[in-house]
């Protein structure tokens, strides 16, 4: 009976304890490379989401294995929401884990500092160095060192329903955020759509993506050149006030505060929104008759500007890269694999699902033909993408911003007070 009671009591904390204790091992570095005639197996971690599908990645990998018979690749797919934690649990324990991982642009400083990823600065192919968009290179670099190769190129675009604009007598798409607001008022007044704007403003990284883009469009900064958080001043405050006012005026859908990108995409597909910011994948789905009631009505453009930042204005860098785990036993083979996946040949072959990060690729007719409107918008927007703050404790900063922005959006705090709170919380975090 005592044993039973002890087991019950211990089990209560065991789940969490296991998770926490599992992260406590040192990271070994063992860069031994087997003989070339020996077959090696790489373990690679990807996400199961929009862009390249699981089938696409399996096909790419099969093609790689065909040319590299001594390398086999085991693929693991997780949703984006689990990717960060999967990488942390696999690489922090220093065990076999994964040889290559897909990493988001915001995790680079954190993973580099934690020693999870291999420095491959010397191995960056010349074609990547000379032909990649700067935002793609920024995605896989920190402090001038490269920890991976660019792979998925993405940013948030301005989507609008041109049919709704025509119905309202609006003859051209808005090119400033002020025009977006005035067009939204007309659409609402004429009863064409109840909430013209829909956003991804739930407590999620998606909120910071929208916010970062708007801050840049209003000429503000999140972190200044001295590394200080400056969200409580200038363009950053204008951006937040813009967000709050759009909700107060009934122009933005109140459901925005509990939506992520795919929720927003679905609302627009139902004809319940005229404007949204969203990633590349949304374009094909909005114009797919089987999934959208507004197919053929949705167009895509670079982001609108403001009086300080003219159209086309910057958007947020949402690119992702392929990196090699610091503790891999097969760094040479891992590099060959990610080198292949990020090659111009593969990027162009799968351009219909994710646009290539090579500048020259976007000029090729075969790539343009995949989605001419999308490629046109991307050719402009890819040159003007801003990074979310490149700080080691990005996850902490993002969490602080998400909560404080939501407090402002929900009216729990004034925008100024919320951002002052964010700055003081971040500063106190720096001292821990």
């Amino acid at each position, binding site marked *: 009976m005592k044993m039973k009671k002890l087991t019950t*009591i211990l089990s209560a*904390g*065991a789940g*969490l*304890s296991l998770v926490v204790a599992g*992260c406590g091992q040192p990271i070994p570095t063992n860069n031994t490379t087997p003989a070339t005639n020996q077959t090696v197996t790489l373990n690679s971690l990807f996400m199961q989401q929009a862009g390249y599908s699981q089938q696409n990645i399996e096909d790419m990998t099969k093609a790689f294995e065909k040319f590299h018979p001594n390398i086999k690749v085991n693929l693991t797919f997780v949703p984006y929401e689990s990717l960060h934690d999967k990488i942390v649990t696999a690489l922090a324990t220093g065990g076999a884990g994964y040889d290559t991982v897909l990493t988001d642009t915001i995790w680079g400083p954190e993973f580099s500092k*934690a020693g999870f990823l291999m420095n491959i600065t010397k191995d960056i192919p010349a074609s990547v160095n000379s032909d990649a968009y700067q935002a793609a290179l920024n995605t896989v670099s920190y402090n001038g060192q490269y920890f991976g190769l660019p792979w998925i190129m993405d940013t948030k675009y301005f989507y609008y329903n041109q049919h709704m604009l025509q119905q309202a007598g609006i003859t051209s798409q808005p090119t400033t955020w002020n025009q977006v607001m005035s067009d939204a008022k007309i659409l609402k007044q004429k009863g064409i759509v109840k909430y013209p704007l829909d956003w991804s403003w739930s*407590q999620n990284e998606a909120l910071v993506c929208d916010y970062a883009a708007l801050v840049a469009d209003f000429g503000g900064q999140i972190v200044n050149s001295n590394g200080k958080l400056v969200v409580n001043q200038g363009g950053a405050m204008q951006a937040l006030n813009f967000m709050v006012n759009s909700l107060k005026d009934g122009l933005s859908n109140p459901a925005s505060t509990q939506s992520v990108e795919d929720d927003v995409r679905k609302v627009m597909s139902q004809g319940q929104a005229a404007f949204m910011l969203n990633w590349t994948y949304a374009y094909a789905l909005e114009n797919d008759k089987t999934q959208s009631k507004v197919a053929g009505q949705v167009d895509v453009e670079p982001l609108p500007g403001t009086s300080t930042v003219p159209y086309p204005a910057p958007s947020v860098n949402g690119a992702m890269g392929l990196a090699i785990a610091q503790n891999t036993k097969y760094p040479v083979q891992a590099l060959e694999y990610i080198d292949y996946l990020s090659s111009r040949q593969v990027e162009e072959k799968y351009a219909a699902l994710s646009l290539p990060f090579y500048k020259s690729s976007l000029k090729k007719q075969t790539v343009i033909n995949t989605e001419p409107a999308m490629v046109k918008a991307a050719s402009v927007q890819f040159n003007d993408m801003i990074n979310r703050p490149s700080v080691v404790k990005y996850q902490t900063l993002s*969490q602080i911003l998400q909560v404080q922005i939501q407090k402002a959006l929900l009216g729990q705090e004034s925008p100024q007070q919320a951002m002052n709170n964010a700055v003081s919380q971040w500063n106190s975090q720096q001292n*821990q």
Partner: protein
Amino acid sequence: MLLFPAFLIVVVVVLIPLIMTFADSLKHYNLLDMSGGTPFVGLQNYAKLLSDPGFWGSLGRTLHFTILSLVIEFILGVAIAMLLHAKFHGQWLLRGLIVIPWAIPTIVNGAMWRWIYNPSYGALNNFLVWLHLTKTYHQWLGSPATAMNMVVIADAWKMIPLVAMLVLAALQLIPEDVYEAVAVDGAGRIRSFFSITLPYLKNVILVVLVIRTIDAIKVFDIIYAMTGGGPANSTMPVAYYAYDATFNQLFISRGAAAAYLIAMLTLIFTIVYSRLLKTEEESK
């Protein structure tokens, strides 16, 4: 000797991680700040946690979740068990159907209720408008005032069958002649419920209370699936706080300390319930 395999499993998967976690909680162990190694800092992580308003806020939300879900689950669980205990046509079918919500994985249940609550196309809003109970769609998970209560409802929907089934099993052990005896003495249904049924159910209720309290204090997955802790942290429980410290901030020692405090909290509840159970047994 026969207990050795079980003992070994407990040592490997419970005791060793618990000891390692406790050791980690006494260090400054942050994967993003390993320049000074992982020095021993005593109870500093616990002190920092206990002085963090964010931790107390998450603890308050955990108690909100725990108390509200237990109240709902017990009232409805006992009521449903009583209903299923009564004899009627199709009783076997209902008894089978009641298990379905409990059989659904928590993550799936969370995703399902997130759709039901969806402010643009959710079934709940649609249903309420259809019944003319409301004219506009509500932001069930978008308002800090309602979000946690809506998560509790989603969790209760899944867990009520567990309570109902255990209570039903206990109900079936109550001898019929006891009810007949009090009926002869002139007791009505309400009187016999409080005089006979409830005392017989006390032990099973206490056992279920222990299980559900521990589960509720550790709540994580349904929050992860439904709200991610939002809006504005209004649904972030203490287990989510520990997760955030460990996986987002990579502050291993802080996460370990938070996990230990959660374990301590569950231990306190377990001891209190065990005492209650013991007192009950001794009084018989």
